[in-house]
């Protein structure tokens, strides 16, 4: 089913891609503008990049955001993988419907609701057990894990159903115990999904503004909180420079994830073809 796009579809596709990319391209171009007024062209310059690198505020925010993102991605991948395994491989268990519901809801839940509810939760917890005494790194990380693990679980579930159970069944037939099957067969087979799940959780965390704004405390500014406080007052050329760097970093990460997934898909396809040939 390919190679027969009508003219209408081609036009829509072209317009769509232009709509997606022109704003981003302009954002990048204006980051090299010397002028202080973003839309007024004042010649090419790296002025805003050097101002950006000299700002300690920016560095602190970048460092906090990266720390949160790495811890979040690691925990979210672990928890999301366990959740995905439970949902796909363990059949029916008590509370499965509630579990599945809580696992899907964060994907669509408006951020203001999640943010507000986590904040009041942390405050009540503090009154009860005295922790968290102050909000910042820990509270933001917990909040991020809670919604990122849902995205990881979706990725893992898709991979688990996609790869089928043939290898696991074969191992079990050859006498491997269920736990051995899990560690020796299932987890290694999941590696590409684990990598892309980790990267997804990482970028989700770097991207979050609303939930972090609710659960943060004084002095703990993540990068999105810093960017938001600046662009609320209007266009800022230094933010264009920051945006350009972030777009570049994310594009590289996504490209790596895409290549990993693509290779895995091709390997799966080859496996299947080999299997079919042997059967035939």
């Amino acid at each position, binding site marked *: *089913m*390919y*190679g027969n*796009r009508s003219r*209408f*579809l*081609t036009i*829509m*596709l072209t317009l769509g891609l232009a709509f*997606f990319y022109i*704003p*981003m391209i*302009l*954002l990048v171009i204006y980051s090299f503008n010397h002028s202080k007024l*973003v*839309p007024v062209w004042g010649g090419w310059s790296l002025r805003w990049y050097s101002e950006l690198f000299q700002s300690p505020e920016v560095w602190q925010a970048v460092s906090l955001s990266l720390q949160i993102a790495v811890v979040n991605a690691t925990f979210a991948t672990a*928890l*999301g993988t*366990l*959740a995905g395994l*439970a*949902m796909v491989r*363990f059949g029916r*268990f008590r*509370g499965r419907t509630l*579990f599945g*519901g*809580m696992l*899907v*809801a964060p*994907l*669509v*839940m*408006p*951020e*203001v609701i999640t943010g*507000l*509810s986590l904040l*009041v*939760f942390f*405050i*009540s917890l503090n009154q009860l057990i005295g922790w968290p005494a102050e909000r910042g790194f820990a509270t933001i990380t917990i909040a991020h894990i*809670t919604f990122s*693990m849902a995205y990881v679980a979706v990725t893992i579930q898709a991979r688990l159903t*996609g790869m089928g159970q043939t290898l696991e069944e074969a191992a079990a037939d050859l006498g491997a115990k*269920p736990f051995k099957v899990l*560690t020796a067969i299932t987890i290694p087979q999941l590696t590409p999904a684990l990598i892309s799940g980790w990267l997804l959780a990482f970028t989700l965390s770097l*991207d979050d*503004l*609303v939930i972090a*704004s609710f659960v943060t405390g004084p002095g703990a500014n993540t990068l*999105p909180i810093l*960017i*938001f406080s600046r*662009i609320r007052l*209007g266009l800022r050329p230094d933010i*264009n420079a920051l945006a350009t760097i*972030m777009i570049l970093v*994310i594009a590289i990460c996504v490209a790596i994830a*895409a290549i990993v997934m693509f290779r895995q898909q091709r390997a799966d396809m080859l496996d299947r073809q080999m299997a079919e040939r042997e059967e035939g």
Partner: protein
Amino acid sequence: MTDVSNKPPSVSQGSFGSQMMRRIQSHWRQIITVIPFFWLLFFFLAPFFIVAKISLAELAIASPPFTKLVEWTDSGIVTIRLVFDNFVYIWEDSLYFDTYVNSLKISVTSTILCLLFGYPIAYAIVRSGPVAKPLLLFAIILPFWTSFLLRVYSWMGLLADQGTINNLLIALGIIDEPIRMLYTEFAVYIGIVYTYMPFMILPLYATMEKLDNSLNEAAADLGSRPTNTFFRITLPLTMPGIIAGSLLVFIPATGEYVIPDLLGGGNVQMIGRVLFNEFSRNSDWPVAAAVAIVLLFILVLPIMVFQYFQGKASEER
């Protein structure tokens, strides 16, 4: 870890460590299920009940700024005070009511716009050649991974009075005075459609990929015209994708905060922004909590429909 599992039980009974190992091995399924389950119960479900509780409290000059629901009086009697004032206040104040209606109007319209533009784009990708297809898919996914905040910001530069679009139109001599676009409802629509479009395209693409082209060919052989085939075969078969994509846009867009704040300024009232401001500027937590509960109440049905379709989709795959 792996070689322990092969040892016969009699060997590994010795130390405490190996006993732990055996415990883990016999109960690992429960452990795997219980850890993420309790995480979500604790950090996702429990917080909603606390919000519901606060929405029934009164504003107080205290930290945190609300009254307690359960109080121990001197005589040892528990008094429970539930105050529905916050909900009455939201219901009676036309500002809140109008804001809910306006949020729903904006999110429904944006969802329809995303569907109208996203459907042909997804269809075009499905019908592309084997080389172009993964590249096009990548091109759609890339902005989805790029910072949401920066994607919204990029439109501030385009839509501003001194922005790229106005500058271009003035330079071309089409207009003399800049058109006001930033800080209007129009800008909010652009922002939502722009940032949420990938959420529409990806589920649509996933269902379209599975379509069997022989159905279209059979219809054509039997003399069906392309428009007829589209409305009677393609559209009904892609319904799961349409529903999933629409809910992925509609539900979060209704509670959107960043887009109405940055692109709408103070001129576009949406409930997410009201909630955020009620909480952060006015510090009226009970009202903010009540606003959140009402929003959740409005969205609970669409969320359950979404969960149902997600569950069905993951079983079919």
